[in-house]
């Protein structure tokens, strides 16, 4: 498919907020020339390089794998590197920081709450005995790998938190990405840690905090499907309550 590189101009409106000088956010508007292959991120870079060096946003890999550049574009959480200006033309874009997080500056949000939640789910292999390196790798069949592989694709971009109405109402909720990663380890055939993670799952802020809206999975750029992970763990959590889970294979249902 040939890419049209004819240049047109699009209006980009960005939320601005500098805690040093502003009491509340406002918007700045920019006219940005673009070609069909330009991402929203490249539009922001154009503004920063050529028009206004004070516009502040995070970015790094520009190929949708580092998870830095999540923003709300016209109210929808997206990765700006993975979203294209052509899809908005001839209308303008309104770019805001991700919902449900405190703003540090302009489009940059404070992600510390997520980092704490990630740490709380113990996102690493927990094993009863440490296997010596000399014993070589574990065996893990492709089928066993597939039980958790989709959940290991999370790039921590936080779009799912921005999309989650429950997290917006109550930021104690552990939230989609962290719970998906919890499930990723619980479902790994090499892991024996589901009991140490059960407290997080079963807590009010755990899987039961989710009300099944499913918007998290819709906005996920990596098809992780956190909503599915959370609901599997509601089943596991219920079985745990009734004492059934420990009778089954680790990880509970898929």
């Amino acid at each position, binding site marked *: *498919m040939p890419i049209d590189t004819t240049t047109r101009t699009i209006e980009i409106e960005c939320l601005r907020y500098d805690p*040093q000088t502003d009491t509340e956010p406002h918007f700045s508007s920019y006219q940005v020339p673009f070609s069909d*292959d330009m991402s929203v991120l490249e539009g922001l870079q154009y503004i920063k390089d050529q028009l206004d060096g004070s516009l502040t946003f995070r970015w790094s890999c520009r*190929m949708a794998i580092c998870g830095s550049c999540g923003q709300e574009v016209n109210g929808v959480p997206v990765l700006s590197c993975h979203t294209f200006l052509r899809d908005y033309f001839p209308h303008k874009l309104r770019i805001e920081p991700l919902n449900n997080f405190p703003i540090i*500056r302009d489009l940059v949000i404070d992600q510390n709450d997520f*980092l704490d939640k990630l740490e709380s789910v113990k996102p690493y292999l927990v094993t009863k005995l440490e296997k010596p*390196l000399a014993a070589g790798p574990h065996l893990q069949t492709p089928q066993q790998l597939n039980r958790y*592989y989709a959940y290991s*694709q999370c*790039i921590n971009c936080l779009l799912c938190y921005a999309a989650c109405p429950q997290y917006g109402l109550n930021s104690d909720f552990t939230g989609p990405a962290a719970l998906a990663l919890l499930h990723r380890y619980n479902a790994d055939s090499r892991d024996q840690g589901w009991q140490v993670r059960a407290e997080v799952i079963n807590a009010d802020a755990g899987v039961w905090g989710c009300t099944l809206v499913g918007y998290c999975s819709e906005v996920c750029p990596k098809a992780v499907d956190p909503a599915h992970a959370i609901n599997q763990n509601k089943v596991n959590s219920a079985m745990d309550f009734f004492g059934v889970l420990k009778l089954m294979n680790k990880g509970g249902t898929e």
Partner: protein
Amino acid sequence: MEVIKVDIVVVGGGGAGLRAAIAAHVADPQLKVALVSKVVPMRSHTVAAEGGSAGVIRSDDSLANHFDDTVSGGDWLCDQDAVQYFVEHCTAEMVQLEHWGCPWSRKDDGSINVRFFGGMKVQRTWFAADKTGFHILHTLFQTSLKYPAIQRFDEFFVVDLVVEDGRVRGVLAIEIATGARFLLESKAVILCTGGAGRVYRQNTNAGIVTGDGMGMAYRHGVALRDMEFVQYHPTALAGSGILITEGCRGEGGILTNKHGYRYLQDYGLGPLDPWPRPKAMELGPRDRLSQAFWHEEQKGNTIGSPHGHVVHLDLRHLGAKKIHERLPLITEVAKTFAGINPVTHPIPVRPAAHYTMGGIASNRHTETSLAGLYVAGECSSVGIHGANRLGSNSLAEIVVFGKVAGERAAAYVRDVPEAGSRTIRQQAEAAEQRVLELMGGDRGERIATLRNEMGDSMEAGIGIFRSASGMQATCDKLAQLRERYHAGIRLDDHSLSFNTEWLTAIELGSMLEVAEAVAHSALQRKESRGAHVRLDDYQTRDDENFLKHSLATRNGDDPPHIGYAPVAITTSPPKTRSYGGAGQQVVLT
């Protein structure tokens, strides 16, 4: 300025930095280890590595094979003692990552699968689909959360080292969110700050890959070694430079020109049959493939595109199942960024600057000439890459030498006395003053102007092929850019809160100095070797005069001084580097 005292500061939270921090902590849990990174660790550029990581595991492979492939791939400029250590430790580190949860791709029986990469005799590359760097980085980051004693300073930008009595004594860092300055006093510093690919305009690197650590070490008199060897990856998307992994070719992908012809057979990489064969055709090394592209472009055999000429990377014959299973990221990237479905259409690709083979000079124990300063990963030149890095050796390098750096630093700090903190404080304040002045800049040129001119000039003069006149022109241009930088940069942003324009201005300062080290090292190397290929009077390798490492040392505002040091040759004397030939056909697993 806030002062925090720790034992070891690790700068950089990519694969090397995380591995170093874990190793230092495990070596001595009593130590205070600080992990300082300008991004949250899982954003680091390790995340973008795709194809895989080397480690001998097959019964038909051997450490000697890995050693030979690496040394010949590096055109004999590798330090062979370092390579020997490296190949002996790669597999254990891959197993370590497996024990920490890395989702390596498997064979049906559950054992580890390995794929081919360029320049390899035997399949040796451990892979996690085509997101190997992503999985390694997240595995290391998530595993590091097991060790809360590792104190993280996320989104802290390190601007300078502090040195007293010939020993490194800490770093000055900016807390990005607030602009506040922190002096992190320490007994050792481990730099794991990545490469400098962003000194080129079209490159495969993330925006953060700006040579900060190289610049810092260089400003403190540590030499940058073998900087002229910059790897062009043969397959990147035109324009953006987004990487299309060598794993595509490892799985059987082919390269064709505008006539549908597999042109590599014309450049010493054939014959075409029997195919696929190791170290032949598309499984040749990166330097040779990028050079072949250049020749095809000269001959008019490439295909025009809005962002420069391209050739076709064709995966169609692999079939949808294999493409989706082994190369899911590439499929997504090609669709999103090039509008191409690789199952039905070939991917248009061209070479782009990819990897800094050289770096901060260190011995194989990751020690530099500055006591207490250790280095690992792409920012370092520990000696294993020589004049051309083999694909899949860099992911292995970050964990093998990250661990060494962590353990060595942990041992070193035991015997180092506390420093007298007054001069340390003064030095940090002087560094603070310099960066604050930069933020105040309200007249002069825009950052992007200088950065783009630098990138274009590096591509024009220090690209895939080089000549004295082109390299000289780039050297002159860089000197002029440094003057313009010092004359004043205009910032629009004078706020202390999350001022990324300010950080970009600091990064540009490092990039200009590192670019100068690259350009002058290249100009002085009057031979062709690996990724440094000249079109003028020096078209062949000259072992008599240039079987030696270059060492670029900072020389104030003048161009760097270029010196030389011997290469460690243990068991493999230089031979002709040969690829192609009528080899054995192989079965790809």
